[in-house]
């Protein structure tokens, strides 16, 4: 439970953080809330030689609404999403999902940008941003670019983010229609065994922990768009997926849970 040795740098700004990343190459990792990265380091599953601490960049902690869009600074804590009156109004799903991440200690340190960059398919907020059709703003040495959430995740703990890029902002559409998030786990603090996020009355459906990335359930979305009932649409939730197997669930049980939870989420989101 003792991490391998590493160097530690404090970033004074996003530009500084990106410069430090460029300087140290792929052995460097950004440290935001640290509640995913530090445990992996303690298990020595991650052994970055340099940590670049962006946790003090308070300029990237904000929630702004306007022009039908909610813009959230990457260093915004889960607890700030959870308790923001502005977010509860503009995108209640995101606030609601944030309240289900880990435990209070995790939510007070963990950040939205951090959880997206970590790209854990078992995390809640990446799937929520995916179902919402969100956009991720990444800044690198050459400036910023916008990546659709659907294009962002590429594999287990992997994304299109380059070694010298950091997420600075996340945007989701305001007023997302009928929504629901189903999180199934054994202890309140745990990752989802399976989770289902439904936004826009069933036009955006994504699955947690059903593959190597947060998964867009396009078959379900198409069924809903075609007028299928919630039960009919949910029946295809696990089609074509290769869910992971672990102590909590084998592939068969995970697929079953995906169907059950998708029907519940669709029902709660207003799909009959």
């Amino acid at each position, binding site marked *: 439970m003792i991490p391998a*040795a590493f160097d530690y740098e404090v970033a004074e700004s996003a530009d500084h953080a990106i410069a430090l990343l460029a300087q140290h190459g792929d052995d460097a990792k950004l440290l935001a809330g640290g509640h995913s990265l530090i445990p992996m380091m303690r298990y*020595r599953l991650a052994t970055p030689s340099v940590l670049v601490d962006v946790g003090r960049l308070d300029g990237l902690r904000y929630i702004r609404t306007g022009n039908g869009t909610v813009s959230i600074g990457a260093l915004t804590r889960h607890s700030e999403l959870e308790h923001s009156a502005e977010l509860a109004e503009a995108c209640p799903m995101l606030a609601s999902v944030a309240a289900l991440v880990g*435990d209070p200690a995790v939510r007070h340190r963990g950040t939205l940008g951090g959880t997206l960059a970590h790209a854990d398919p078992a995390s809640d907020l990446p799937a929520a941003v995916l179902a919402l059709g969100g956009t991720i703003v990444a800044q690198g040495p050459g400036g910023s670019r916008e990546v659709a959430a659907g294009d962002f995740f590429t594999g287990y703990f992997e994304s299109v983010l380059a070694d010298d890029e950091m997420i600075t902002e996340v945007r989701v559409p305001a007023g997302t229609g009928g929504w629901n998030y189903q999180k199934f786990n054994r202890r309140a603090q745990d990752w989802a065994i399976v989770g289902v996020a439904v936004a826009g009355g069933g036009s955006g459906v994504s699955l947690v922990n059903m593959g190597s990335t947060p998964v867009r359930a396009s078959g379900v979305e198409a069924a809903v768009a075609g007028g299928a009932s919630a039960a009919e649409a949910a029946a295809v939730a696990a089609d074509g997926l290769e869910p992971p197997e672990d102590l909590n669930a084998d592939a068969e049980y995970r697929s079953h849970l995906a169907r059950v939870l998708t029907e519940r989420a669709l029902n709660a989101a207003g799909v009959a």
Partner: protein
Amino acid sequence: MTITEDAPAGHVGSRRLRKEDPALLTGEAKFIDDLALTGAIWVGVVRSTEAHADIVGIDGSAALAIDGVNEVLSGDDLAPLWGEGALPCAWPVTPDMKNPTHLPVARGTAKYVGDAVAVVLADSRYAAADGAAAVVVDYEPLPAVVEIEDAVADGAPLVHPDLESNECYTWGLWGDNAAAVDAAFADAAHVVSERYLQQRLIPAPMEPRGCAAVPSPAGGELTLYSATQIPHILKVMTAVVLGIPENKLRVVAPSVGGGFGCKLNVYAEEILCSALAMQRGAPVRWTEGRSEGATSTIQGRGQVQHIELAADAGGKVQAVRVKLLADMGAYLQLVTPGVPLLGGFLYHGCYDIGLYLFECTAVFTNRTPTDAYRGAGRPEATYAIERAMDSLAVSVGVSPEEIRARNFIGADAFPYTSSAGLVFDSGDYQAVLDKAVALAGLESRRADQARRVAGGSSKRIGIGFSSYVEMCGLAPSRVLASLDYGAGGWEAATVRISPTCKVQVVTGSTPHGQGHETCWSMIVADKLGVDPDDVEVLHSDTAVSPTGLDTYGSRSLAVGGTAVYMATDKVIDKARAIAAHQLEASEEDLEFSGGTFRVRGTPEAEVPLAGVAFAAFTAHDLPDGMEPNLEAHVTYDPPNFTFPNGTHIAVVEVDTDTGNVDLIDYVAVDDCGVQINPLIVEGQVHGGILQGAAQALYEDAVYNSDGQLVSTNLADYLVPSAAEAPRFRLDSHATPSPTNPMGVKGVGEAGTIAAAPAVINAVVDALRDLGVTDVDMPASPQTVWKAIADAQGGAS
């Protein structure tokens, strides 16, 4: 819990806040890793990554290249430190029990994942961890025995080839009953025959283990600090294993953050650090990592249970027959072989069953050694009989409460000699059950349950009973002798009254979270008429408390507390003699209450205890021949165990679509005898229930077929948190134990003993109409969902 009793006259019986807590809550309390030791050598332990393998080579060159890493030592290098000395097993339960030599660091062959195979000595904990990770061990894998039943299969690989068998021992209680038991089964109207699995559990106290050995090279003394439950036993064992004269050895347990039995042991690291410290003349220390502890600290449970009941047409059980296979792991730790025996007397539960057969075969496997874990044998026994009684109720066609009522030992039967040979002290099992039934609101629960079944709801309600009796207050020394245990079961206490009438209590009990300081203070304060805050309680340091047998098996209050009670009486007797001298009265004419001696019938003739204490200190005018000072020592050997009992009722809601189990209500009515502090009793019951429910629903030390522990961290090994705790609704029904003067029994393990069968009985009750008759522990959502699917598949 609603307290309905009248307010107690004294402190005993009141919900006094714990005097331990301010230091714990503010971080002032010092645990093993808080010790500041200048110049300490830090130990990093290289542990086997193989379940069974020859150690072909150990390459420490990469470790030695790390700054701060000074030495890499193999088991062969270290062998001269202990010679033939091996880690002790104090409980050879049969004369022919097989006990493999258990060296602190393995030589030649590693026998389980986590077995120590080499040691790194470093300047810091960080360097020790880096060094241990960098040591390269070359293994030649050998076939491993992982599962219990595989260990006794034909052709099974041998964990210890020199022992020629994986069977450690077979122990039983069979007397001359066999023919009568066979006849009872032949004649039975109802026979229940069940097989249950007790999964392995990881104790996971808040504080992992750790130790630090600090030598005084000039005088040859050694102080061993350890996060242990048993400083006194550890001292004797360390002296014996390493040949350190006992008078040169001191063992200190600082604040200890929980144990649950896993710190009731003598561990490799304690012996290793002590031996190295003596050799190097410098402090040597080790702190366990959480994942390291998953395999380097003992695990609990690990049994395959076969239980059979023979009952008449009315459901009255005539005979119980039990066969266990118990997993010792790769080696025997301090009391590993004895754990199944602690349950072996209790498989008839709280029922009057005349014919009893018990047999346990213990086996070696290539896994971490097992040993005592909260309840130690008794949860296993309670699980088997309480699950089987529910099956019998179904067979007979009566409710779980009715089958229990038909079989309970009657309230008028105490003292009750059981068919297993114990004498139960006191109890009213039916009254306890009746109270629990009323508290649970059983009628409306059952109506809701029936409504949901009739409506085809996917949210089923299940109600599960568990009536238990346990033996604690370990233990009469002569009884322990008859069980071949290597020590006694007494406890020691000293009570001193200072010149200013403050009280010092020295106890041989060794708290690690229980609240001894508070309870002992309350007992003494009531007897002496002083404030509990004027009582200090000293413990857990063999230099301060040289005599003791420590804390485990719910023994502290019934044995250690009784010793304190009796030592206080002894001090009062001496004070009475001095007071009589001061008042020029005879001792028989004095009464003592509220801290004052008075001459009966002469109210103005009185002297306060403070006056007596000061007189005892100055010794200016004491009765002829009396020694100065007020001090008394008592060593108390209990005449019997105590037998706490109770009925717990768990209510679950099972989602048949997902298999999820919600523990929605939990009622517990316990008889732990007289309660010293109901607040502390409730805390013990709450924690105990959650720990038992954890076995039922969450926790599982999962090994794969190669003998690798898969659940090595607290994300995979699911210790429940407060968020998973049910609503606890507690009540009590005290029948004071006649075994000791306070009438106390003990409560440290009761909740854990009762909870697992209550919860699983509830899960099965919820699913019975779907055809489910058993669900293995832990009843995870996947396990429950598959049990439903299997039952439905079988039905169609």
